[in-house]
């Protein structure tokens, strides 16, 4: 079915957002900002899933997005609790200071 905005455009937008998120993960020093970039990447993949679901009229894409959102919520809760605990011990969330586990 031909839509006014074809699904390829949404895929390109999702790709750009994903790459921006990946660059944020690599570039940022604050652990919370790294986490937010991961959320941006998850969002970009959600956008791609919904675009594919509309292209092929398949509601399973929406279901997958629903599960991704739910699991992302659980992951954010635990990740932020971890960051708070680390901050309590090290008094810093600069990821360059958190290298205790390296050999």
């Amino acid at each position, binding site marked *: 079915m031909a839509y*006014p*905005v*074809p699904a*390829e*455009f*949404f*895929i*390109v937008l999702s*790709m*750009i*957002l994903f*790459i*921006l*998120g*990946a*660059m*944020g993960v690599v*570039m*940022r*020093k*604050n652990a*919370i*900002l790294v*986490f*937010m*970039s991961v*959320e*941006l990447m998850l*969002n970009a993949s*959600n*956008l791609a899933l*919904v675009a*594919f*679901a*509309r*292209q092929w*009229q398949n*509601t399973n894409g*929406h*279901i997958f*997005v*629903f*599960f991704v*959102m*739910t*699991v*992302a*919520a*659980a992951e*954010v*809760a*635990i990740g*932020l*609790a971890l*960051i*708070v605990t680390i*901050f309590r*011990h090290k008094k810093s*969330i600069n990821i*360059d200071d958190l290298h205790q586990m390296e050999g």
Partner: protein
Amino acid sequence: MGVEALLFIAVGILALAFAFVMLTSNNAVHSALGLIANFGCVAFLFLMLDAPFLSMVQVAVYTGAIMVLFLFVIMLLKAEQSSDTTTRSFPWLVGAATVAGVILLVVLGGPIVNGSFKLPDQKLASPSVRLVNASATSELNLTISGDTLPQPITVSNLAFGKATTFETLPAGTYKVNIKNAETDKPVAAPQTITLANGDVATLTAAGEFNATAGTQVKLLSIPTSGKQAGADEGRLVVVNSASESPVSLVDLGPEGAVTTVTRDGSTVLIDRILAPTVAYQGAPGIFSYPMGMYNLAFLDGAFNVVRRLDNYVIKTDTETMLVFARTADSQDGVVQAITINTEPPFGSPKAIGRLLFTDYLLPVNLVGMLLLVALVGVIVLSRPEAEKSERRSNVRRKVSRPLINVISTQTGSDIVAETPQLPTGDS
């Protein structure tokens, strides 16, 4: 450039701008706000993609819960004060990441933008058909035979007003033979139908068979789309199987006390002609109507009411075939209704809920348990335990002494300098 394309470009550029703000802002709170605005733009894009439920879940869960949690933690840890750009262990990181990102984008996005990569179109499913007996004369034996079928499909003793379930057949041309169930004599000439991929059809045997009058049963192929046109609507298909002039279906309105209707009668009735002039054995009248209770009526060619359906309930997400026929018992005509359930509109909460509670019931429960475990985990992780661990490490450090010293302090004797000798045979 339509409105949709312009909207997409505007909202897309806004989303990218807010993501860029999130990436390059020194203040963590500004980054979080940029990400919230980005999620809002993505929710709008979900609306453009026929996903209203997901856009609202995005606003409520992602923006309203996850980002608010982020803001709480940022405020708690005073992270907005910590500058992100003072010390850099790898000064070349920003440039390298930008170059890698641009290269990746060009390599992956180039073929899409210049059109050499196109997503394949939706694959159409094999045709599925069902058989309906709309002929009031007798029960029918129907046989479908074709080149693609190893054996002809036979449906026996299909009573008036009954339908089979949907069967999936390979695409092709088929011949349908209709016979009287009791006498096994054909009631119609063998008819040929062609099925293509993506067809969902209801093959209706309509008409009356009268050997003396020479009328025969005809097979109508009625497309059944299976999808609702709009929310909270039901679809009706009107089939005329009575051997007389064409019938129309009208909505008589709430009072419904009229028995005779003329063309220039009440304007209410003229506005609400639902299925005008369905010819005998002709193309059926298909329409969608909002759900509710109506007084419907079948009118003949002279607009006289031949059959009334008082307090008829149209349900949402259903498709009902109303067959108007005459039986030997009732000369007024009898109406048979055959109802199937159709799918709710694509992307609506009802469609997603239906899938979640049938196909995905186990994953939904597992994700629920995951959320509960996450809840317990967060509570455990955020317990205050700083002093307890300090004391424990001090205690542990005390125990890391040789066992000899421990024993000597316990027994009160001096530390033995050399290893004690076991007593030999001669003392």
